């Protein structure tokens, strides 16, 4: 492949990951992962705790340097062009990123400033995001008084202000009750229809992934165990529901990962979101 063709492919595929390896000392958290995401696609990264999903997202959002391999986001190298990547993405980490001591509106304004939305456009962008995520009713409430579903929608709204080329959502529905979860997904669907935003989402909710994602990659022990559309995966593994693909592909290793700190943090988060 010529350099030019490669550059073109990079521009076309909004996320392009090739042979990604991340090692923490002896531990190989990501062990050679390759995948790509096209414009307007909703791509689901699935897998049990400790499969390497969050580590992969951290590389793509420039928070972590890969040990080996390469990754491009919106045509930019995550290692060499970190700033360009950060300017092109929206990122909602799994843990709560809203400032509880600020109101919902102040959080929006802060992230508008932080992501470099020009002052003249800020108000208009905030209004659009508020409408897209339906936040009108609680704009003046302090972050710490909001429910889990409100927080997630607010977080997604703060990540939309810069009109990102790719939106990274790490476990957006973890710890939410079914109603809140449905509302979050409803808003994401609307966002996709109206703005055509490209979304890379991690989850371990199989049925959510089945309903919402165009394509799915199932990760286990730092590798991609299976990749394709939900229908393709069901057909390939000859099973009626995606849940079974998950079990097959990960070899039933459902809940081995997660250190004490991870578990403590995620329980604390669930309590906070409930």
């Amino acid at each position, binding site marked *: 492949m010529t350099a030019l063709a490669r550059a073109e492919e990079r521009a076309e595929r909004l996320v392009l990951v090739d042979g990604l390896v991340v090692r923490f000392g002896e531990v190989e958290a990501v062990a050679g992962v390759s995948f790509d995401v096209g414009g307007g696609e909703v791509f689901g990264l699935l897998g049990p705790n400790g499969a390497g999903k969050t580590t992969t997202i951290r590389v793509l959002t420039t*928070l972590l340097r890969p040990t080996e391999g390469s990754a491009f986001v919106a045509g930019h190298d995550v290692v060499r062009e970190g700033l360009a990547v950060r*300017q092109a993405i929206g990122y*909602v980490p799994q*843990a709560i*990123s809203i*400032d509880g*001591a*600020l109101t919902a509106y102040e959080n929006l304004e*802060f992230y508008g*400033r932080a992501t470099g939305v020009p002052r003249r456009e800020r108000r208009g962008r905030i209004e659009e995001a508020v409408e897209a995520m339906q936040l009108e009713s609680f704009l003046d409430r302090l972050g710490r008084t909001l429910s889990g579903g409100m927080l997630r929608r607010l977080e997604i709204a703060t990540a939309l202000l810069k009109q990102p080329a790719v939106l990274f959502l790490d476990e957006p529905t973890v710890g939410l009750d079914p109603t809140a979860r449905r509302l979050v997904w409803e808003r994401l669907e609307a966002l996709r229809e109206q703005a055509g935003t490209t979304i890379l989402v991690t989850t371990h909710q199989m049925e959510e992934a089945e309903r919402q994602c165009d394509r799915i990659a199932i990760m286990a022990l730092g590798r991609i165990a299976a990749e394709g559309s939900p229908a393709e995966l069901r057909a390939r593994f000859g099973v009626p529901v995606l849940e079974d693909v998950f079990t097959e592909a990960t070899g039933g290793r459902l809940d081995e990962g997660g250190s004490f700190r991870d578990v403590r943090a995620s329980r604390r988060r669930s309590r906070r979101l409930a």
Partner: protein
Amino acid sequence: MSAPAADVRAGSLDGLRLLPARAARLRDGTVAMGWAELRKLRHDHLDIFTRSVQPLLWLFVFGTALRHNHALAGGSSDYRAYLAPGVMAQAALFVAIFFGLGVIWERDVGQLQRLLATPLPRLGIVLGKASGAAIRALAQAIVLFVVIAIAGIGIRWTVWGVVGAVVLLLLGTAAFACLSMILAALVRTRERFMGIGQLVVMPLFFASSALYPLAIMPAWLRTIAHANPLSYEVHGMRDLMLGITAGGTLWLDFTVVAGFLVVTALVAAKTYPRAIL
């Protein structure tokens, strides 16, 4: 061998060309962070008043008890006046040193990861956070100045004196807040941070000229106090508010405190990302 060298040169040229843009991003980032800190303070007025209780106790209980001790008062006729800049700096120091707790909290929730994935420069994040501590110190200082005026404690009420002392206080507080962020990045858990915070804050406080003149200290303590940036902060404030120089110079005080801020801010910007792992 030659290729990397060429890269480095291109990089530094690039760096020069992009300098104005980088400076603008640093300014915008610092302003954005500082703006958020100011907003937070507006939602929590009570914080300023509860934190002002401790310096007032020092000033009126400790200060009044030793009011007529001339050795302690270092040339001032009223120990309370001598003590005023010290407790102002001390109260700000406490705010600043425990600022790192907030950083650990922000790591435990997802704010820090989120911030680091925005285009905000790391130095801007650090300076913006530090300005939050400085804003709190300013609010405390205003409360203290009002109380000092009402109580009729004899400080020199000149514009340059008050403004200069406040500027020095803000620089010092921002620097100690950066130091606290460095500690937070190294320590990583809240429980351990509380211990380290105490371990750092009390020696900083006692081995400085905050409570008593350097002249009455034993030689070993004086040596430590001379290496303590808090001594220079307090010394300069005392010079500006009371005219007590105790053999130091104001430019040295400002240079040491500003230099301390530059160093801690740069180190904090380097170590800060470690806090998320």
